[in-house]
Every structure is written in structure tokens, then in C-alpha cells.
């Protein structure tokens, strides 16, 4: 390397150093620490002691955690399916060129920009059986007969939080799928029309395979929005009835910051992260599939 080249390289390194230092301190260090903590008894106050795999063994027999994993998985499945269907529906509405289409895009996307916590407070009021307006609307249009105790049963609570989350996130998947639909070369759809393919056939055989990567992206996003859900359950159901709507992040929160057992919370975090890693690998494999045409 010449002197000029070396100076150039050092200047470049100088520029990327500040972000690297921050990332090291608040990302890489916590990541390593998390694994170490998971191998210790680590109370909130006082000293910690090495515990080997005790936390992991305890997690294996922890039925609350097991249930929370399954519940998060169920919620993720619902969110993924909902985001693909609703997002796809919205995308097919707004992927056209028509006057005013921009307004519709903005409206459908609007719930994405507000906070999940704000959305939860809004819906918590809306579904309140005595003062909320949702039940009143349902009564007034004769869908229901008596106010519904939305948070009274696991099934209804899950349905409600799912609807709320889909309302909040559908605009995002709309945007991704819309950009996919718009990237399909026009000649391709026209050619298939000449071939006499119907609308549904055209979607199944041509469009969906072509936007496979966009679909994979929506799935990745569903995992982040579904498997890691916390805010809406913390605010709206607080895990009730019983602990039937406890998500895995919620259980981690309880272990670390309610029971002050940080080592155990870290072990649960490691398990959840492994699950996420598994999801990502599967999704990468889906997205990798060729998109040649």
C-alpha cells in the first residue's frame, strides 16, 4: 500500500469508528453478555454465581414459557396469514395507475406510523363494553345483541389483538407487495392474457411466483411483528385471562423484570433468538428460490 492509499484507508476507518464503538458497546457486548448471563444465577441485585445449564433445564420444564412460545407461534401464524391476504388485497387495489390512488395508499398506510402502544390504548378504549364505540356500532348495525366482553375469553382476546395488529401493520405489507406487483414486466401479464389465462390463474401461475421475494419479506416482517409482540398484549390483555395470552417476550419481561431473575430471562431470550434464527434461515431459503422468467 502506498502512503496515500494508507492515509485514505485510515481516514475511512476513522469515519466508521464512532458507529462501530456504539454498536460494540450496546449490541455486541450485550449479545455476548446475554449468553454468559444465561449460564448464571443472576439476581437483579447482589452477586451472580455460575449455574451451568440450570436455567436451560428449568426452561424445559417451565410450562408457562412453553405455553407462551406456542401462543406466540400461533399469533405469528395468524399475523403472517393476515398480512399476506389483507396486504395482498390492499396492494392489488393500490398497484394501479388511477387518479387519487395516492390518497388511498396514504390512508391504508397511516396506522403503520403511529406507535403500537398508542394503537393499543386506542383499541383498548374502543372495545370497552361499557364506554367503547365498537360494541355500540356492532349493536346498532345488529351484528351483536349484547356488548361483547372482548377480553373475557382467550379466543376473543386473541381475535381482537390480531385484528388490531393487522389494522396497524397491513399498510406495510401492502407497500412491499405493491412494489413487487409493479415490478412485474407488463409484457408478461399481457402475454398470459393472450394465452387465455384467467385472472386467478394469472395470479397463481405467474404473479405470485414472480413476487416470491416480496412475499418472503412480508413473512420476515410478520415474525418481527408477531413472534416478538409485546406492547399490544401488555397494554390490552396483560396476558389474561389467566396467562393464556402471554407472549414469549412478555414472559421474558416477567422473568427478568418482575421476578428479577435476569439469568433465567437471558436463557429464555437465547431460546427465543434461536427460534428466530431458525425462522430466518427457512425464509432465506424461500426467498433464495430463483425468480428467473
Amino acid at each position, binding site marked *: 500500500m502506498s502512503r496515500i492509499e494508507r492515509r485514505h484507508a485510515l481516514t475511512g476507518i476513522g469515519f466508521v469508528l464512532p458507529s462501530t464503538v456504539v454498536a460494540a458497546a450496546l449490541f455486541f457486548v450485550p449479545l455476548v453478555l446475554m449468553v454468559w448471563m444465561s449460564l448464571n444465577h443472576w439476581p437483579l441485585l447482589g452477586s451472580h454465581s455460575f449455574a451451568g445449564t440450570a436455567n436451560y433445564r428449568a426452561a424445559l420444564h417451565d410450562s408457562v414459557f412453553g405455553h407462551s412460545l406456542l401462543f406466540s407461534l400461533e399469533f405469528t401464524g395468524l399475523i403472517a396469514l393476515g398480512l399476506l391476504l389483507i396486504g395482498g388485497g390492499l396492494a392489488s387495489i393500490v398497484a394501479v395507475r388511477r387518479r387519487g390512488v395516492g390518497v388511498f395508499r396514504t390512508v391504508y398506510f397511516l396506522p403503520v406510523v403511529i406507535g403500537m*402502544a398508542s394503537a393499543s390504548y386506542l383499541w383498548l378504549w374502543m372495545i370497552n363494553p361499557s364506554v367503547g364505540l365498537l360494541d355500540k356500532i356492532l349493536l346498532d348495525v345488529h351484528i351483536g345483541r349484547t356488548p361483547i366482553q372482548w377480553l373475557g375469553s382467550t379466543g376473543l382476546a386473541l381475535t381482537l389483538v390480531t385484528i388490531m395488529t393487522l389494522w396497524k401493520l397491513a399498510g406495510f405489507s401492502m407497500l412491499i407487495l405493491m412494489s413487487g406487483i409493479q415490478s412485474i414486466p407488463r409484457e408478461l401479464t399481457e402475454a398470459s392474457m393472450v394465452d387465455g389465462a384467467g385472472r386467478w390463474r394469472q395470479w397463481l401461475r405467474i404473479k405470485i411466483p414472480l413476487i416470491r421475494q416480496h412475499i418472503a419479506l412480508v413473512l420476515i416482517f410478520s415474525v418481527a411483528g408477531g413472534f416478538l409482540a409485546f406492547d399490544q398484549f401488555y397494554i390490552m390483555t396483560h396476558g389474561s385471562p389467566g396467562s393464556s395470552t402471554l407472549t414469549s417476550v412478555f414472559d421474558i419481561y416477567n422473568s427478568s423484570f418482575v421476578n428479577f431473575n435476569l439469568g433465567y430471562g437471558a436463557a429464555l431470550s437465547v431460546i427465543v433468538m434461536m427460534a428466530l434464527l431458525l425462522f430466518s434461515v427457512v425464509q432465506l431459503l424461500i426467498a433464495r428460490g430463483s425468480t428467473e422468467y
Partner: protein
Amino acid sequence: MAGTALTDRTGHSRGSHTTVAAGNGVRPRRRRTRSAGWYVVATIVALLFLLPFALLLVTALKTPGQAAASPPSYLPHPVSGSNFSQLFSSSVDLTRYVGNSLLVALGTVVGTLILCVLGGYGFGLYRFPGRNIWFTALLLIFMVPFQSVLTPLYVVLRTVHMQNSLLGLVLVYVTYQLPFGLFVMRNSFAAVPRAIAEASELDGAGPLTRLWRIHLRLVLPGVITVAIFAFIAAWNDFIGALILLSDQSKFTLPVELLTLVTGRFGVINWGVLEAGVVISMVPCVVIFLLLQRYYLGGILSGAVK
């Protein structure tokens, strides 16, 4: 660049006349009914999406008594701002929490911009050994969501006495904005025409001066995109603030609203809560409506690539 890439995507409604008119020769009537059907469907769906916002607004504008009435009524009667004025009166007083939220969100914007402009400049315009691996390592933050490392983050921050501090919270938010911000800024700088980059080197000005005087205005769309994302993420975050802050005086708005839900004396003042929710939504909605080109462009450039 993030901003310009988007213009043809979201901005193309402007050209819509011509497209519709061009195909008009074929079967005009069928086209027209189809188009009317599209507007009907799109409008109904839009109303469904707007409904929660509309219900929120009408309730926030009721008097506290009317907002608490059961069964509820649809329209505020009379229209009243007293829910909002109560929010800033002595009994609830959200002033401090709105202030905390603003401080944290603006701090996150400033911190993210400084790190990502510098870093993006380094990664985008300089060559040094290990550059690509280095960049990829920083993007890894994207793969590990914030919610799953909160337990060790709490311990790290407590060790350096930054737990229960707004500055600590800002640093955490900045860290998790790094992958997106660096990605956008690196691409923005890499897209600066080579001739400009080289010409600026001839001036003999130092690298920082060149960045400030010449490059920064060329990557402005990227800067705006990164700033919007940082603001909205920090303003909206709930779980991070819930865990990392312990004094009520330091709470951000979304966390403080929780105390309104728990209710003083067990009674929830719904009207006041919903007015607080309106306030928590306003900045994001305004920023989005004004700068949506950059916001949507950021998602598309960050996600689809």
C-alpha cells in the same frame, strides 16, 4: 438515492390521466363501470381503516363526563377541549412526559445522523481492508431484534450508570437505528457522481470539510429518510422505555399513558386517556403526511434490496 427512487413509485398517480385515456378506445363503458367499482371498493376500505381514528377524535372532543357515559354516544355534544386542557393541568400534567419523549426522539435523530452520516461516508467513499465484512457485521444488528436483548442491555447500562437515564435510552435507540441508517447513507454516498467526489478532493480541503461543504447537500434525501425513521422509532417505542426507565419523572409519553389506564383510584378517565393518545399520534402523522415520499422510499430501498 432513497428519495428520488420513490418519486416514480408513489408519485406516479399524477400521470394517471394519460394512462386511462390512452386505453380508452377499446371498451369505454366497461372501463368506466370498472373504474367506478374500484373507487367504491377503495373508499369503503379506506373508511374502515380510518374508523378507529375518527372514533378516537370524536371521543377526545367530548366533555370528560360524556366520554365516560355508558352507553356511549357517537358525537361530542358539546364539542369540548377540556380533555386536552386536563392533560396539561395539575392533576395529570403530561407536559413533562411529552417533553421527555421529544427530548429522547430528537436526541435519537441527532445521534443517529451523526453516526450514520460519518459511517455512511466512510463505507461509501473510502476503501479500507475488511470494509465489506465490517459493514455486514454492523447490519447484523438488524437480525437481532431489540426486544430479545433487553435483559443484558439493562445490565450493561446499569454498569455504566446509564440505566434510568434518558441519555442511555437515546444511545440504545441510536444503536438500533444504525443498520438502517448506515445502509441508507452508504448507498447515498456511493451514488454521488465520481466526478464530484474527485473534483472536491483537488481543492485540498480536509475530508470533514468536504463532507460538510459538498457531499452533505447531495445526500440530503437520505439524511431526511434516516431522520424520520429515527424520530418515529424513538417517539413510538414502548418496551425499551418501560424497562430501562424506573423513575416516573423520566417516563416517556407511551409509558406514562399506562398510568392513566391503571387509573387513579381505580377509575379510568377515558376522555383524558384518548386525548393523550391523540397527542402521542400527532407528530408521527404530521411527519408522515409531510414527508411520506422519504418515509415510503426508505422502506422500499431498505427492505426490498
